[in-house]
């Protein structure tokens, strides 16, 4: 069914085809590196593959499965519970928690990881202190599945929290009241109505978490926990087999694509456009007595573990080295990080709007698959994606240079490689999913009657987008930009591999230090990453509240 093309002029039809074409270009851009990686399946490295299959594959799959399951359910419970509390309930400090709970978004997961291991391991201050004061308790081992899951949940829950909070806030208390008037207690109503109604958004958030977990290398290596991604690294960096690494990565991509499609399919005909009006100010559920204490305690504990403890430890470490390490180059690192994050955020959001609009106009299978493909990059481990993007760009670049040289005798050197263009392309491919889910989630809330009334007032095409959709989308665009911005600030492997000369960023600085195990010295750039990331997060919240 095609809701727009049905009733409009050929000009507009051409225009909406334009959306589709642009979406095609974007998804091809994402598909290219994925295809480069898939190409490995045609020339497999059988020797390495045989070894992986025999000794590692089963264990890596099981490890990854448990980690993903744990992280996904953990972020689901934590994110949804916190979102419900802050979006619908009222308890002391709710307003502060509402934005403070987003702050962990600025802390890279690998930073939380090395802080947590630093604190809770045998040699950390906690256990050392206990030993020296003669306490003989055996704490659970932090370098374990439980430990790595805990860190990932603490680092990634804000994705679910942010998206679910918006969904609950828009849904308001009305659905719950409707359930109550039909004999359901608020608790039953939450599970029967509020939760299912927010499902697409919550699942969108959890999908981001799953993909982030699958692609993660930094966190799991701090814990020395072997996953599919560490297997990819091992095949490539330790066994020098990019083919075998790509084979593993292909499996990962196929797996993610299947999940994405299944989720799409499950939604089928249901539409989640909010039917009721949005919640007013006084429509919160006040928590009383122990409930309120429990809510405050819960939110504080999460804040403490996910933000306050890591930040305090980072600040302590950073203060030890700040006199020696902080020099004028930090301005460059900071500037590069900010510039890169801003540019990537703008590009991703532009592309995400195109994808989301195409997705809205066309619900045929081709478009749906196209749009989904465009978000696959998020599940690929950074360096694999970097190499997948780099190979075709380098090929194109070399052809271009040789061509120019042959025809014009002009030798301009490489046009794309070693420029920020390559890096930006790779970053955009990686973070398209983040931008898209935020934009698409909001666009879905614009009812078709809004479109229709705009058409009836003579707005269509770009005018419709500019005058009607974008203003309504502003919140979503801002969220998308913030998420991408923060993600790029934290991103390490792609920046490391494809950055131009002299483009060292804060994250690169963190890498330089952690690669040598100097975690204390990594604290300084980490603190800078967190602080720089906090600014847009706080702005985003301001924005969301107005």
């Amino acid at each position, binding site marked *: 069914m095609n809701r727009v093309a049905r009733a409009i002029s050929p000009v507009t039809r051409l225009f909406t085809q334009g959306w589709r074409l642009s979406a095609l270009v974007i998804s091809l851009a994402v598909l290219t590196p994925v295809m480069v990686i898939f190409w490995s399946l045609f020339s497999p490295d059988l020797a390495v593959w045989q070894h992986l299959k025999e000794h590692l594959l089963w264990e890596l799959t099981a490890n990854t499965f448990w980690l993903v399951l744990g992280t996904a359910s953990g972020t689901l419970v934590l994110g949804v519970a916190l979102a419900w509390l802050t979006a619908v309930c009222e308890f002391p400090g709710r307003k502060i928690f509402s934005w403070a709970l987003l702050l962990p978004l600025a802390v890279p997961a690998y930073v939380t990881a090395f802080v947590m291991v630093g604190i809770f391991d045998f040699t950390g201050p906690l256990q050392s202190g206990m030993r020296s004061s003669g306490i003989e308790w055996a704490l659970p081992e932090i370098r374990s599945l439980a430990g790595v899951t805990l860190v990932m949940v603490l680092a990634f829950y804000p994705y679910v929290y942010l998206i679910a909070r918006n969904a609950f806030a828009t849904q308001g208390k009305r659905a719950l009241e409707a*359930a109550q*008037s*039909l004999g359901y207690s608020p608790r039953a109503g939450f599970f029967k109505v509020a939760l299912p*109604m927010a499902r697409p958004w919550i699942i969108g958030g959890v999908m981001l978490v799953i993909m982030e977990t699958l692609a993660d290398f930094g966190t799991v290596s701090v814990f020395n926990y072997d996953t599919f991604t560490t297997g990819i690294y091992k095949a490539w960096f330790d066994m020098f087999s990019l083919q075998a690494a790509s084979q593993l990565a292909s499996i990962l991509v196929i797996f993610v694509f299947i999940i994405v499609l299944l989720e799409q399919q499950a939604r089928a005909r249901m539409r*989640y456009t909010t*039917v009721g009006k949005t919640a007013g100010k006084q429509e919160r559920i006040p928590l009383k007595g122990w409930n309120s204490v429990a809510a405050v305690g819960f939110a504080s504990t999460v804040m403490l573990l996910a933000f306050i403890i890591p930040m305090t430890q980072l600040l302590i470490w950073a203060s030890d080295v700040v006199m020696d390490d902080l020099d004028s180059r930090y301005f460059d690192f900071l500037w590069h990080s900010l510039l890169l994050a801003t540019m990537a955020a703008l590009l991703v959001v532009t592309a995400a709007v195109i994808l989301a609009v195409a997705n809205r106009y066309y619900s045929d299978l081709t478009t749906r698959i196209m749009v989904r493909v465009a978000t696959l990059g998020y599940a690929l481990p950074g360096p694999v994606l970097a190499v997948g993007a780099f190979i075709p760009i380098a090929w194109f670049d070399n052809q271009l240079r040789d061509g120019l040289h042959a025809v014009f005798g002009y030798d301009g050197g490489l046009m794309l490689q070693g420029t920020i263009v390559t890096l930006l392309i790779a970053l955009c491919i990686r973070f398209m999913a983040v931008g898209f889910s935020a934009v698409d989630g909001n666009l879905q809330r614009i009812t078709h009657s809004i479109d229709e009334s705009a058409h009836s007032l003579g707005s269509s095409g770009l005018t419709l987008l500019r005058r009607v959709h974008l203003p309504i989308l502003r919140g979503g665009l801002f969220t998308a930009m913030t998420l991408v911005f923060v993600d790029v600030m934290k991103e390490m492997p792609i920046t490391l591999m494809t950055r131009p000369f002299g483009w060292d960023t804060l994250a690169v600085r963190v890498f330089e230090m952690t690669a040598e195990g100097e975690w204390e010295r990594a604290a300084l750039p980490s603190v800078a990453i967190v602080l720089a990331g906090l600014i847009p997060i706080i702005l985003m919240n301001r924005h969301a509240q107005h």
Partner: protein
Amino acid sequence: MPNTDYLLELNSITQRYGETTVVNEMSLALQQGDIGCLLGPSGCGKTTALRCIAGFETVQNGTITLAGKTIASRQLHLAAEKRHIGMVFQDYALFPHMSAAENIAFGLQGQSKQQRQRRVSEMLALIGLEQSAELYPHELSGGQQQRIALARALAPRPRLLLMDEPFSNLDITLRERLCLDVRDILKQEQATAIIVTHDQQEAFMIADVIGVMNEGCIQQWDSAYNLYHRPNSRFVANFVGEGVFLHGDVVDGERVRTELGIIDGEFDAPCCADCGVDVLLRPDDVLHDDDSPLQAIVKAKAFRGAQILYTLSLPTGSEILSLVPSHHNHPIGEPIGIRLDTDHLVAFRV
């Protein structure tokens, strides 16, 4: 005193948000099987009163009794889900992830599957949407959504049904038709209901008894006829129906002297004689009569099909309204003859 004749009783309930009193010592009583209506301008507290009855708000003072049992008071608040009171929301609040049939079945928990299915088909038949059972809310028109919302609320056979501005999201022609449909459905289900609206036409069409609300309390709780013809306050007189007040002086218990002469009719005189009053003149009280010595100049007119509503200017400058059969078509500025036809006078002391 709880009176078992009434299904629902509100006994001077009060509801405040901070400094503002939204519902102020409001009382009403509704009989089993009746359709009551709270009518009033926006902000008069009618929706809040409804939410108090539903259990979404706690009352700060007064009591609410349902079938002789207190369900809300200062000390007591029976949870909304335990009151067996159905509600149709202004925005319908249909669950977007459920089909029409699933929405209707939602409140039928604790029943067997067959029972549920039977009740759902029964309700779909009642609202005439058997064909739309499997459609999702976004695939239904506004009027269909409205009827699904009604069916959903009625399906569990609530003791009382509340409807908050149920027709405000519909266009006018649909509104009138649905209004009558809903009344039929409610009567068929023998439901007791309270409807909140700001539209008197709606109220007149659907309700057995209407409470006109202002500033948090009910000014008059009465039949539509009485509200129109025997308003007990200036507010009710103004809010219900059209009309103007004309200044006059009481002559005796049956007569008032105005610039249109002596008007007679039965009325509750505020004094025996010679006090100033404002007399309510409805448009149908003022008849057009070419032979009448009383003349007024046409100031404005509104064509209403069978009739024309004239706004007429009297020599003193006061204005009155007159409803005239539409073949008496007079241009603006022309003087026409009028005559009064009143049997009951409504007059309030100045």
